């Protein structure tokens, strides 16, 4: 595991020996098995791996909504889940989590009031909501009920909620799944703008490998372990592959072969 950001400031997320057990009763399943990784500040880190490899669990651990987390996990200089982090992290779950029986603007107004409450902050909130609407290109749909929007539009409402209050760290769980190519390109442009102009750190998960090329750094996951942490270029060079996908498959084959050697059955 290498981190080619030696001179960089403290990472936004710092994990060592991060282990998560899930499930109740006598057979808890270890979803994350002692993983080590860093998410550098001000950059887009892609979290890639097949469905069910533990991406969502890892993201929830970072956000602080996951129980049974052991090991070291520091987020923005504090232990994950610290109450002071709640207004500094924006989190978008895989399924859009917005109120279907409110309009887009009413949704944003409410979540903005939770982040920045009080009558005195009303103007600041209004500007914040307008900017979030513009960021996700939904200004024209502001007064539509969220439940009447298309799937892609609803997931953009969910993203807009996470953009409220200019969070330092954005944790986005498969934000582009099910979107058409134009929207996907627009969202990735937005992610780059957020990192470059607002200095935000982004942790974006995907199981689509071609999105890996758009990230600054990659975390490749498989079966609860981190296979590699690297930039896309370095990863391709190291595995002598043309694409990240090919490199990932090569790493998987190596890991399988190693496991077979250690545990011949």
């Amino acid at each position, binding site marked *: 595991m290498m981190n080619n950001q030696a001179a960089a400031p403290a990472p936004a997320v710092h994990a060592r020996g991060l282990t998560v057990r899930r499930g109740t009763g006598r057979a808890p399943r270890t979803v994350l098995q002692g993983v080590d990784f860093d998410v550098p500040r001000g950059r887009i880190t892609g979290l890639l791996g097949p469905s069910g490899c533990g991406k969502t669990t890892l993201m929830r651990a970072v956000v602080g909504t996951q*129980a049974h987390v052991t090991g070291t996990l520091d987020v923005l200089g504090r232990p994950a889940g610290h109450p002071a982090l709640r207004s500094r992290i924006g989190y978008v779950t895989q399924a859009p*989590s917005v109120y279907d029986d409110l309009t887009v603007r009413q949704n944003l107004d409410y979540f903005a009031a939770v982040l920045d409450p009080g009558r005195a902050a009303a103007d600041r909130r209004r500007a914040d909501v307008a900017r979030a609407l513009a960021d996700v290109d939904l200004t024209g749909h502001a007064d539509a009920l969220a439940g009447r929007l298309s799937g892609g539009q609803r997931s953009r409402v969910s993203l807009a909620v996470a953009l409220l209050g200019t969070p330092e760290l954005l944790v986005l769980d498969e934000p582009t799944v099910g979107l058409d190519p134009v929207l996907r390109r627009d969202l990735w442009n937005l992610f780059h703008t957020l990192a470059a102009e607002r200095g935000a750190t982004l942790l974006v998960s995907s199981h689509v490998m071609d999105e890996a090329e758009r990230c600054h750094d990659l975390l490749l996951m498989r079966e609860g372990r981190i296979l590699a942490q690297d930039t896309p270029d370095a990863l391709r060079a190291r595995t002598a592959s043309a694409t990240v996908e090919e490199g990932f498959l090569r790493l998987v084959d190596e890991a399988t072969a190693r496991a077979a050697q250690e545990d011949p059955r």
Partner: protein
Amino acid sequence: MSPTTPATPATPTTPTAPRTGRAPRPALSPARTTATAARVLRQLTHDPRSIALMLLVPVLMLTLLRYVFDGSPRTFDSVGASLLGIFPLITMFLITSIATLRERTGGTLERLLAMPLGKADLIAGYALAFGTMAALQSVLATGLALWLLGLDVVGSPWLLLLVALLDALLGTALGLFVSAFAASEFQAVQFMPAVIFPQLLLCGLFAPRATMQPVLEGLSNVLPMSYAVDGMSQVLTHTDMTADFVRDVVVVAGCALLVLALGAATLRRRTP
């Protein structure tokens, strides 16, 4: 919202956030609570049919009851007064259990608890919003029963309203609590007969509690709805507040706060 303040901070914070327990946070933020209540009411305004059902069904049932007991106005008095306490409890139980179940399954609860929103803010917001609806419902039903249907009450109508509001709070609390054990809206609705019906049978509406089989009478002594109905009949038959009425009000309010605290404990910041 004031009655919920003391109940919530004690239980929920420590067991669910083992690594963050040290942070001192205000138990309740009035601005976040009112924002939550406004949001819940705003959701209702997009659903006018639910509002109409909530407000009109009790009115229609009371009217029906009045003419069912056309020949025996005394019976209408006692059953009608009891129902004025039972309606808000059942309505608030149903809408709270469905509404909070939607928060849980729709992902918005996880999102809210990952934001700087206290559990007390969320619960108080719900209690405030649905309490407002319950007040409207009770004013309509009580007004109609007293002035149009000729319900004969000796005590003050304000005391009827007070008991009705506490019943609504109890219904909100029970709904919030059971929504934690329902995985779907089907199950949530099934909790209504499971939680409410036994109380309905044992509360003294169908037979005086003192005439029940002793085990059942003992059971009815620990069920909150028995006190809700007794409180209503105290107002029905006495001009001023009796000691029994005060006991009834305290028991219903205490149960509501206890169940609200239990409900708060079921809101988990961290999912297993």
